[in-house]
């Protein structure tokens, strides 16, 4: 059952709020270099699934393995080490407002990785350069556009050298003309072999770059497949209905 190649594996992830199952027995295996895209209606459990993966939300049930090693979240040390290896990108960026772009990227290296100041500086500048923001590194979040903020947050996650990145609708809080700058960074990451799980409503993007698409509704994984299959010949009526509606709305 255990796939030697898999970077991240989750099994039977369940989260309940009161009586409602917001996530029900979700299982997922992400292979090295794979980009998995979660689609589905809002409130369908995409964010909850992503946040359960690194235990920002505590699942009621479910197990997680990173490179074959199970994460026991009650062991705090292990949990913190695990989170360093799982980069997370949020819908609303969540940059630290009191720090410049550069300091935002550096702080994890200094505090968590205990890097020397010099190394942290070099690494942070390198990562900001990679997302095209070297010229803006001394600006505070309040002085950056949405797209720039999201790119800083990507640089911040990348600086930790994660094994896998989780992206929770990284473009949904952005103005339309800023979306492409973030998507192109993600495409670039993919080209460099970064393993990623991403939720999005951009079907065109999903179709173009995803290795696999996971359709999630009411907390249940309804269908999984290649973009080809999901967009042209889905097994489930519900998947077809959702995809056609979204495609109609946004085009492909």
């Amino acid at each position, binding site marked *: 059952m255990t796939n030697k190649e898999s970077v991240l594996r989750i099994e039977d992830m369940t989260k309940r709020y009161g009586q409602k199952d917001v996530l029900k027995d979700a299982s997922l295996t992400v292979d090295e270099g794979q980009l998995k895209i979660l689609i589905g209606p809002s409130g369908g459990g995409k964010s909850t699934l992503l*946040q359960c993966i*690194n235990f*920002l939300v505590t699942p009621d049930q479910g197990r997680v393995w990173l490179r074959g090693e199970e994460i026991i979240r009650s062991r*705090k040390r292990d949990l*913190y*080490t*695990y*989170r*360093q290896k*799982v*980069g*997370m990108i*949020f819908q*609303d*960026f*969540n*940059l*630290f*407002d*009191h720090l410049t772009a550069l300091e935002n990227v550096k*702080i*994890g290296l200094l*505090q*968590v990785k205990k890097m020397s100041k010099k190394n942290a500086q070099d690494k942070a500048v390198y990562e900001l350069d990679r997302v095209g923001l070297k010229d803006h590194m001394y*600006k*505070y*979040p*309040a*002085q950056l556009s949405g797209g720039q903020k999201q790119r800083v*947050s990507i640089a*911040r*996650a990348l600086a*930790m050298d994660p094994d896998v990145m989780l992206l929770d609708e990284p473009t949904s809080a952005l103005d339309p003309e800023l979306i492409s700058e973030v998507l192109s960074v993600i495409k670039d990451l993919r080209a460099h072999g970064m393993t990623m799980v991403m939720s999005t409503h951009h079907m065109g993007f999903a179709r173009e770059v995803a290795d696999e698409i996971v359709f999630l509704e009411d907390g249940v994984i309804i269908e999984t497949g290649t973009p080809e299959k999901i967009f042209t010949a889905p097994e489930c009526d519900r998947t077809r209905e959702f995809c056609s509606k979204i495609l109609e709305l946004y085009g492909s």
Partner: protein
Amino acid sequence: MEELFFIQHEVMPALLRGLLISVELIIPSALCGIVIGVVVGVLRVFGHPLVVRLANTYVLIFRGFPLVVQLFIWYFGLPHLGIYLSPFVASVVGFSLCSGAYHSEYVRGALLSIKRGQLLAAQSLGFTKLQMIFSVVLPQAFRRALPGCGNEIIYLIKYSSLAYMITCIELTGEGKIIASETFKYTEIFLIVGAVYLVLTTIASWMLRRVENRLRLPGFDHYAM
């Protein structure tokens, strides 16, 4: 002429002596108050439920008891338990604990104003709770709490005048002694009041400087 001589040789030295004691009371009380306020505020927001209850009880008591009563307890009450504090120490302890309770409320409000997303981001980078509090939450919360905490320090300057009630003769105490010796209540207390006004003015000016110093883009709410 006689009047001027009297002011110069009797009133001024006494008031100056009092002023010195007042300042000696205010500075350590303000600093201890802030430290207590930050610690208690953090515990009330991030602490274990049991600690939260304990901290809330502290605030309830120290905001609820009149300050004079608190000072009486420190000075006249503790000796019953075999603990003797000098008037000065009892005053500083009383002021610090009372001030800390008020500060903790400002700090708590500021902590709660930090967006939850930033906490999630810190956690997702692998921060421990303590690292998150010290490097993400407090630097922002402190900036937000500063106007409120400054207000509390201004208050402290004025309620330091209660120290004379437990025989720590500071500015107000000296004023009262001279006034009752000379029956020049109005004149003396006008001067005493003016000195407090000067103290609070200096304090506001310093607090404003600190605020400006710590100002960052995105935290200057009044730049509308």
